[in-house]
């Protein structure tokens, strides 16, 4: 049993479909060491951002991640506003908060489904993703897009929320709460899930602090760390909500933190939609003076940090991005070693490593002729949005 073997996960993860490489050194079924390699997919997005104007950068930055596509523009716009410095109008703050929380719900649902898939529980996987469609519909009504909402710009938001859209959204959000409750029960009460996740991949409070873990990963280990509370931004200080903190740091607690956070997000989103203040949504910034600014926000996976330096031109002179997974990834070393191979995948998934996925599609008939061109697809999707808005 003492013979050591290498079990590779990657360099292209069979499930997470992104390039990352874990080398598990195992004795029998037990993992004794792990080597984590990332950086197989360098896209030079910081450099790209420096080649665009401040306004255009928002769109580039949005494409860093397909799931938390709002967190990066949010942090970036806050960094740019920090250079001047200005405060955005109240209404814009509320709209930003609504979009960010909607994204948190869909991101956590996506993760919950994947976690189920990793455990071989495909029913949870499909149900969570079905439920996620509802919240994506809400986002489509509000912004016109399912992901990559393009709502942010330095100095405010790009698009207003129409007051006639709000009741429909509230109805849709309310309708997901019972199903969320059911999902919560299914996850929390399942004895087999308990057996699989409790006491597995424990990240102690000390280790969480040493590794500087962020977001749900740290909050599951009893570190009460949340940018929304610690240095409040947007409309978060105007809403009553609780930070979810659990103490055990195992996979089960990471599930619980994310599931309960969805309920808080629903609360925040509803409050903001109902109490949306009147007024401007944009400051119409004309120029950015020379200087440096930082922006950090609580993305679904943890703190996203952006640094922007301006030299007085219309482009950022330097733009630095740090995504939360960068900090959470090294905690694998503390959590995986000593566990079995069966648990390794779910432990690796428990920090919710960030995805970068976008897809293009073309519909062809059997003879290979294109049925839809790009413009047709755009038109189709716009018609669908209009239908959604009409239905409410």
């Amino acid at each position, binding site marked *: 049993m003492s013979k050591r073997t290498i079990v590779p996960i990657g360099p292209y993860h069979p499930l997470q479909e992104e390039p990352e490489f874990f080398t598990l050194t195992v004795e029998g079924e037990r993992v004794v060491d792990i080597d984590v390699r990332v950086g197989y997919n360098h896209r030079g997005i910081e450099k790209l951002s420096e080649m665009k104007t401040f306004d255009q950068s928002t769109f580039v930055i949005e494409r860093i991640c397909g799931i938390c596509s709002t967190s990066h523009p949010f942090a970036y716009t806050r960094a740019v506003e920090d250079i001047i410095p200005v405060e955005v109008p109240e209404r814009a703050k509320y709209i930003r908060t609504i979009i960010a929380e909607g994204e948190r719900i869909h991101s956590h649902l996506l993760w919950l489904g994947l976690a189920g898939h990793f455990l*071989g529980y495909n029913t949870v996987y499909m149900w969570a993703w079905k439920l996620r469609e509802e919240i994506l519909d809400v986002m489509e009504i509000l912004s016109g897009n399912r992901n990559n909402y393009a709502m942010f710009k330095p100095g405010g938001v790009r698009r207003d929320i129409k007051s006639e859209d709000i009741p429909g959204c509230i109805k849709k959000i309310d309708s997901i709460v019972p199903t969320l409750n059911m999902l919560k029960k299914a996850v929390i009460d399942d004895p087999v899930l308990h057996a*699989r996740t409790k006491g597995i991949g424990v990240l102690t409070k000390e280790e969480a602090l040493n590794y500087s873990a962020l977001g749900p990963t740290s909050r599951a280990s009893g570190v009460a760390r949340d940018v929304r509370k610690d240095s409040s931004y947007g409309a978060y200080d105007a809403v009553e909500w609780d930070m979810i903190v659990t103490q055990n740091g195992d996979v089960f607690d990471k599930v619980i933190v994310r599931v309960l956070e969805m309920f808080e997000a629903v609360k925040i989103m509803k409050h903001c939609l109902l109490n949306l203040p009147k007024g401007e949504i944009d400051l119409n910034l004309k120029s950015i003076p020379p200087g440096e600014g930082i922006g950090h926000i609580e993305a679904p996976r943890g703190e996203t940090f952006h640094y922007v330096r301006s030299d007085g031109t219309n482009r950022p002179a330097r733009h630095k991005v740090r995504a939360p997974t960068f900090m959470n990834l090294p905690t694998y070393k503390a959590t995986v070693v000593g566990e079995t191979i*069966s648990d390794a995948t779910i432990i690796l998934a428990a920090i919710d490593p960030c995805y970068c996925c976008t897809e293009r599609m073309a519909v062809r008939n059997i003879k290979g002729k294109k049925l839809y061109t790009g413009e047709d697809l755009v038109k189709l999707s716009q018609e669908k949005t209009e239908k959604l808005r009409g239905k409410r």
Partner: protein
Amino acid sequence: MIYLLYFILYGFFLTAVIGLVASWIDRKVTARVQYRVGPPVLQPLIDIVKLLGKETLVPRGASKAAFLGAPLFGLASVMLVSTILWMNNINTQNTFLGDLIVVLYVLTIPSISIIMGGFASSNPLASIGASREMKLVLSYELPFVLAVLVPVIHSGFSIRIGSLLTYQASNGVFAGSLSGALALIVAILCVQAKLALVPFDMPEAETEIAGGVLIEYSGTPLAVYKLMKNMLLFVLPFFLMIIFMGGLRTDGIHLLYGVLKYVGLVAIITVIRNTNPRVRIDQAVRFFWGPVTILAIIAVILAFKGL
């Protein structure tokens, strides 16, 4: 000569057809439970035919004979079991002393062929899968044999499948008694593990070891494995039907009952697989050697008391 006919007609063709249909039902029900559309009826067959046309790759460093022989070995054993079961079911006189023991033995060969194929493919993930399959076989065989003992005790220590059937035809099915029902529950759990379906699919665990034992298989050998699994989905519930539920009778209304029994067993297996996450191998071993074996022993004791 008549046996060869049985072997090909019933053992292979009929079993394969029913197995493929059962596999389609399983996939379709799973899809509907998960808000998906699900595959068309012919999909399981299409999968296998498509695989037959693909290139067969043998990994470097693999033992070629064992690697390619293992799937055939497994398929042949499933066909053999199926032939014995059909022969007994069609004519209960068509039985020989100890065929129950033969069936029990031969039913472990598919698992052994998977272990063989896994170790022969010289891939660390396949080796892990094969070692898991081995642990799984060790864990479920004991309660499975204990559960099969219950009908044997009830029928006055007969180890002919044919006489188990005649006994049930005149005295009612074994599943009707308390011990028989307990043994049936144990046997269904063991069948779930024999079929390597969730929650006991760790030898293949797609999300952990990327297909495990089957990772290096492609083309025809993979098609043979898939066919073997589909046929097992018929053979194992059919075995349970014969020893616990009076088998499949073709006279009038009993044919409908027989079909319902089979579909019911497949439905139970599908429901179990859709409402559970995968367990770890150590948990599975503990589960089978702990509660399941105890349940099986209780069933055996009750059977001795005549309950």
